[in-house]
């Protein structure tokens, strides 16, 4: 059965959003080891800023599952779309080399706690935000290492697969 490219893209983006949510749930028993960064980065390299649709679905599912609270707003509403935008911004070097992707993903993992702390700054003040960030440093380091290893192991295998099966294959990436 033939389907229109736009429909296939819509379904792929929706499935990507759902997969992000499933990945988060499956790996949540391992503190700060997650496949969400990996998939957002690779998806953005394949689908461009259209990945924001998948991220929006993921963020909405997280909110429905865990509650639309301050953590949801500061972390999910801001940091994950930010990763998508940053990936798009640096897409040329990220597309060229998997080690660059691994370093980029690791830096995002390392800065995740700092991002939360900065977003909480207006609510808890400098000391509160600084204490929160410092207390979470061991978790940020695990996040960094997890992101680096996952991308190093899977980035080079998944990216060509995703590109080959993308509804945008052989079309210019918007």
């Amino acid at each position: 059965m033939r389907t229109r490219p736009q429909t296939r893209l819509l379904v792929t983006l929706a499935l990507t959003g759902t997969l992000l949510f499933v990945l988060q749930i499956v790996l949540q028993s391992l503190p700060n080891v997650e496949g969400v960064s990996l998939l957002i980065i690779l998806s953005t390299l394949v689908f461009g800023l259209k990945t924001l649709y998948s991220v929006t679905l993921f963020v909405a599912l997280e909110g429905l599952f865990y509650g639309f609270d301050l953590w949801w707003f500061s972390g999910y509403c801001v940091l994950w779309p930010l990763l998508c935008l940053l990936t798009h911004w640096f897409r040329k070097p990220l597309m060229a080399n998997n080690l660059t992707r691994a370093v980029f993903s690791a830096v995002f993992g390392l800065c995740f706690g700092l991002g939360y702390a900065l977003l909480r700054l207006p609510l808890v003040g400098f000391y509160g935000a600084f204490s929160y960030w410092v207390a979470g440093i061991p978790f940020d380091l695990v996040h960094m290492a997890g992101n680096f290893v996952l991308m190093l192991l899977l980035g080079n295998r998944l990216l060509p697969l995703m590109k080959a099966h993308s509804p945008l294959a052989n079309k210019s990436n918007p």
Partner: protein
Amino acid sequence: MNNKKNLYAVLALVLVAAALMGVYWLTKPKTQAGAKTVTVTVFDAAGSNVFNQELNTNAETLGDLLESENLAGFQTSTYGRFIVSVTGIEADSAAQQWWHISIDGAEAAVGCDELPVTDGAVYTLTLKTGY
């Protein structure tokens, strides 16, 4: 050339990680051994003071103090222990309730097992609603 740059970036990441670990260890709250006298006060969701007592303890962290005095119930997660009940009052997670900890009026930035028990300190546990 690109790989050389990436290797430098990995090296820089390792150095930054080591430096951050140093910051963590230097700023980590230190526990103190020996006898201490502290005050524990508990407020329920309605804001009523349901417990206020001076306690003599050898516990080094707030988690150990609350456990040894049978004041709190805990749940263990991958991120460590967190308080689920105090003086028999359960936090209803479905209603987004949680136990807020403050020390001498200042909000705690770490969990109960990282909070050192300091002689003369006042530990306030308040049942809050909404994350």
